[in-house]
């Protein structure tokens, strides 16, 4: 054990866990990384490219090395940073990206071959022989690449989403964030305080600084207690604000139960969309390292992280108690780590300070003007080489802390592409002044990392933010604090001939940057892409600035001239499941059920998804073994008796107002104004670009009242288009629009016996052809007083009606029609039979009205009235549209029992089948039990003039072709006598 004294762990709550199958113990309050270090485990993973042995580098979410596969089975979670994985009893973790055991990774051979794997090498080789890239090289690369693995099982956990609103969102609950929260909370503002950690305090948890002369955590505890008592403050721990979106909207993930073995009844995570009037970004800072030769060994870590492990988790980073620890720094901050380690009883070799005028703050050795120039220890650091003025000596150490300075966490401030600004005093980029509107950086995130200045800055940021939204907040009494010394030299890396890592995870070294420079990959984005620098899971948090500094040195430019990179959401990795939260199965999207759905279900109907709707597809009966048998029966029943079909899905829009007729006249291409009350007209709508859009009916219920129907697919779109026309084009017209699709259950009653059936349910309404002819409509009552609407319209070519009743009665009406029609052969039918009936009649549906066709093509050219203007009319007459020669026709296969596949292309017999000889295509096909033949519809060049011609319907995709005869699209009753009788 390498535990020290103190810390914020609960020693009375020991927890068992395993790493690579070996059992260990940790404590409540530990992360996986601190617990492993506490057990003397330094080796935690392997690097991406060279498979170098790696240990933990950081203590937070920026960790590039210590990544594990957490949990097992379907909950296996790859690439989890051990530094943020809260320890729970029974946790299991495995290191990843190695073949064989972690300490003897077979792929470590890559490290020996590293000279061949220099930056950009992929692009220069693997090109010969040509076929080998995909067959050999790439599969090998793919297998070796990647990090952790997925279980390939569906994620078993639940995820939630939600929306929060506040006056002030505070990102980060360290010194600045807590001061801001107290200030705003006391002012009565609605505050959300979010922190990715499971406890409040931020860096205060990891430092030994006193507040008001006492342990800083005492102040944190009192601040927490006060904030929890304020009803206007919501504290959200384990919550990462990962992205800044427009107008003060933030994406945040709350890890509700990742700290538990299983979520139980809870969701695993919640995605919050937070709308904040103002935001204080108090996200702290991230420490950077200093590249030097072989600086990537387990045991080499950031000095600030080392301090956090010592102070917060009471662990020493060495494998064995008594091993010495050294610090390599370019500034005062490294000395703090030495002091804290000593205070906790660790053995410190000394501080290697690159500055000649290195200070000394306590009783430890200072190697002034010195650098670390080498390390030893394959699986864990054993010694370091310290060099001063060219003279080197080796020292035995078990760990080395590296302090290269701190980078403000400017990420969220840069999500709107505001570029961070270089600050020469801080030697760091600070947030851009033109960052997201309403977002104010504070504390270390603003470059004010001293505890005292962070507290003050947080308070001031809150006051400023609130004053902008008219909330007066007063200064609060802040605890007395100090700013620790933070002098620093612009010392970026230790020059040398050996490899010095800049990006640990992706194995990018100083040499790689030099090579990129040599090859003219100088713009920082080229550097990144050529070397993969900053593309690892830490998104360059620990590497980008060092790399810029090295490139700046090579180009002779300053760091800001060399550039920075754009920060993009998310701040840290966010599980894909929570972003796609909610239902992923049958309720992934809402389901619209027709009024007769439950009835159809009881009949054993098969259902089909039609957009949002579930519709009955067909109603199988006992003894029927194929769907075709069922559909053939349904179709024949309709044509010989009477069929019933729920057509509620068709869109219905109520159009009222003095100008309703004129309005519809402008919406539809054909004349609608001259309709009569009690009559229905078929209507064709065009898009403004002249193409066919939708078809439907207009029923005139009163002088100033129409009921319009649309296709199922376009119901919402047509309603929207009508609102557009009404509000944006012709607001002067007196028109009121409202959808009534759901209000009415509409049932098609179709077939020669439909009139007889309806006669049995209407309350004395005269259904005779004279009183209620084809295309008539009326309000009436049925079944002893139920209000209903009746439309005599037909899409099948048969005598047919559509009857509408309040939706709650649809179920009962269907039952009643079935009962009353039993002796007439009343048969329910679904969408399949519906399709057969309309294909037999040659009516266009979705496959023909697919947005690419014109009225001319559909044989409806005459419906575009030249006597008036309507949407799309002018454009439908353009040269290319007028020249369109394809027409909707019917096809019959010469062999009646061979299906003409929809999607086949049409060719003249004997011609080569190419795109230029293509004559058209088959849009819809079915078996017609009526004609005892397969039939089809399709578009054919000059189709109207080619009746009787035999063509090839080619389906090379499925290796088939057949001969079809061109016929009229009206296979049934082309004269239309049946529907008028």
């Amino acid at each position: 054990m390498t535990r020290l004294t103190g810390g914020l762990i609960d020693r009375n709550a020991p927890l068992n866990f395993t790493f690579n199958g070996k059992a260990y113990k940790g404590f409540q309050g530990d992360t996986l990384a601190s617990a492993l270090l506490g057990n003397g485990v330094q080796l935690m993973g392997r690097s991406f490219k060279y498979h170098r042995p790696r240990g933990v580098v950081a203590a937070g979410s920026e960790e590039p090395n210590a990544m594990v596969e957490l949990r097992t089975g379907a909950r296996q979670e790859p690439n989890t940073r051990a530094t943020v994985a809260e320890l729970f009893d029974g946790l299991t973790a495995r290191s990843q990206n190695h073949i064989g055991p972690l300490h003897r990774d077979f792929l470590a051979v890559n490290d020996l071959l590293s000279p061949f794997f220099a930056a950009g090498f992929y692009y220069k080789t693997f090109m010969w022989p040509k076929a080998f890239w995909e067959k050999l090289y790439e599969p090998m690369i793919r297998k070796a690449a990647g990090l952790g693995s997925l279980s390939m099982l569906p994620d078993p956990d639940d995820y939630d989403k939600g929306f929060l609103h506040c006056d002030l969102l505070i990102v980060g609950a360290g010194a600045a964030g807590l001061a801001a929260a107290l200030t705003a909370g006391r002012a009565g503002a609605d505050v959300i305080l979010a922190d990715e950690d499971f406890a409040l305090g931020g860096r205060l948890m990891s430092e030994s600084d006193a507040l008001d002369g006492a342990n800083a955590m005492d102040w944190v505890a009192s601040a927490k207690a006060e904030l929890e008592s304020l009803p206007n403050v919501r504290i959200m721990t384990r919550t990462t604000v990962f992205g800044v979106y427009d107008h003060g909207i933030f994406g945040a993930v709350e890890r509700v139960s990742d700290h538990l073995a299983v979520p139980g009844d809870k969701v695993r995570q919640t995605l919050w969309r937070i709308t904040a009037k103002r935001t204080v970004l108090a996200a702290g800072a991230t420490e950077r390292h200093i590249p030097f030769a072989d600086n990537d060994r387990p045991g080499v870590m950031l000095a600030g992280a080392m301090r956090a492990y010592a102070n917060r988790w009471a662990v020493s980073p060495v494998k064995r108690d008594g091993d010495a620890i050294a610090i390599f720094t370019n500034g005062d901050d490294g000395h703090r780590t030495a002091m804290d380690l000593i205070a906790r009883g660790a053995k410190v070799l000394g501080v290697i300070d690159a500055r000649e005028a290195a200070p000394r703050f306590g009783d430890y050795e200072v190697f002034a003007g010195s650098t670390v120039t080498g390390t030893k220890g394959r699986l864990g650091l054993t010694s370091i080489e310290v060099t001063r003025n060219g003279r080197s000596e080796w020292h035995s150490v078990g760990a080395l802390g590296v302090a290269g300075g701190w980078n403000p966490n400017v990420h969220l401030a840069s999500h709107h592409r505001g570029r961070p600004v270089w600050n020469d005093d801080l030697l760091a980029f600070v947030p851009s002044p033109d960052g997201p509107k309403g977002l104010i950086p504070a504390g270390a995130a603003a470059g004010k990392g001293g505890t005292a200045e962070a507290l003050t800055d947080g308070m001031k940021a809150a006051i400023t933010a609130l004053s902008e939204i008219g909330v007066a907040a007063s200064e609060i009494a802040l605890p007395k604090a100090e700013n620790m010394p933070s002098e620093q030299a612009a010392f970026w890396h230790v020059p040398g001939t050996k490899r010095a890592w800049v990006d640990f995870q992706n194995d990018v070294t100083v040499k790689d940057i030099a090579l990129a420079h040599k090859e003219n990959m100088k713009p920082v984005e080229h550097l990144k892409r050529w070397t993969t620098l900053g593309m690892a899971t830490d998104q360059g948090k620990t590497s980008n600035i060092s790399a810029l500094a090295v490139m700046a040195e090579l180009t002779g430019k300053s760091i800001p001239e060399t550039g920075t990179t754009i920060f993009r959401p998310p701040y840290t990795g966010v599980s894909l499941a929570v972003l796609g939260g909610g239902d992923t199965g049958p309720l992934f999207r809402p389901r619209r059920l027709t009024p007769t759905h439950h009835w159809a279900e009881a009949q054993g109907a098969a259902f089909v998804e039609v957009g949002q709707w579930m519709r009955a597809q067909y109603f199988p009966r006992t003894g029927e073994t194929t769907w075709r048998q069922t559909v053939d029966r349904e179709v024949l029943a309709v044509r010989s008796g009477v069929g019933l079909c729920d057509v509620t899905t068709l869109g219905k829009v109520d159009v009222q107002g003095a100008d309703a007729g004129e309005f519809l006249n402008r919406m539809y291409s054909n004349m609608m104004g001259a309709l009569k009350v009690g009559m229905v007209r078929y209507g064709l709508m065009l898009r403004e670009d002249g193409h066919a859009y939708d078809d439907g009916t207009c029923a005139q219920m009163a002088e100033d009242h129409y009921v319009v129907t649309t296709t199922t697919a376009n119901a919402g779109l047509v309603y929207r288009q009508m609102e557009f026309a009404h509000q944006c084009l012709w607001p002067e017209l007196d028109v009121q629009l409202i959808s009534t699709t759901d209000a009415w259950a509409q049932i098609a009653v179709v077939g020669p016996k439909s009139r007889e059936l309806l006669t049995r349910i209407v309350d004395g309404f005269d259904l005779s052809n004279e009183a209620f002819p084809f295309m008539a409509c009326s309000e009436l009552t049925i079944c002893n007083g139920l209000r209903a609407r009746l439309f005599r319209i037909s899409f099948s070519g048969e005598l047919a009606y559509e009857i509408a009743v309040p939706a709650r009665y649809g179920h009962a009406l269907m039952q009643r029609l079935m009962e009353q029609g039993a002796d007439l052969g009343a048969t329910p039918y679904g969408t399949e039979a519906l399709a057969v009936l309309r294909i037999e009649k040659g009516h266009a549906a979705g496959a023909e009205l697919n947005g690419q066709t014109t009225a001319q093509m559909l044989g409806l050219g005459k419906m575009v009235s030249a006597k008036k203007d309507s949407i799309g009319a002018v454009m439908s007459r353009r040269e290319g549209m007028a020249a369109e020669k394809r027409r909707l026709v019917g096809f019959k296969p010469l062999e009646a029992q061979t299906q003409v596949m929809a999607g086949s292309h049409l060719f003249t017999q004997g011609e080569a089948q190419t795109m230029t000889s293509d004559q058209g295509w088959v849009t819809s096909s079915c078996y017609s039990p009526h004609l005892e033949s397969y039939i089809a519809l399709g578009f054919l060049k000059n189709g109207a003039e080619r009746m009787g011609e035999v063509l090839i319907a080619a389906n090379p995709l499925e290796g088939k072709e057949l001969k079809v005869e061109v016929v009229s699209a009206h296979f049934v009753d082309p004269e239309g006598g049946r529907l008028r009788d």
Partner: protein
Amino acid sequence: MLIPHPLLGLRDSQEFTYLGDANLMHRPDATAENAEAQFCDYVFQRENPAGVHRELWFHEQGDRSWLVVTRDTTTHEILGAELASNVKLGAAE
């Protein structure tokens, strides 16, 4: 994004459906001599500015009003929103 609805205040843009350039309100006169050319321009050509853009949003999951929103396409900052029918009627006067 949040759309500052002139009646309802700031609303989630997810409640809206976007159409495009507010010039789509100015449908040409079909009886004009060069009507086809005017319609081609109306239907297909766009200013597509990098900067301030007047555009149509439909509050489909709200009060079903069409709005003319003025927005900077380079920053997404919204400078104002009006009811389209008011704009149209005002323009007609």
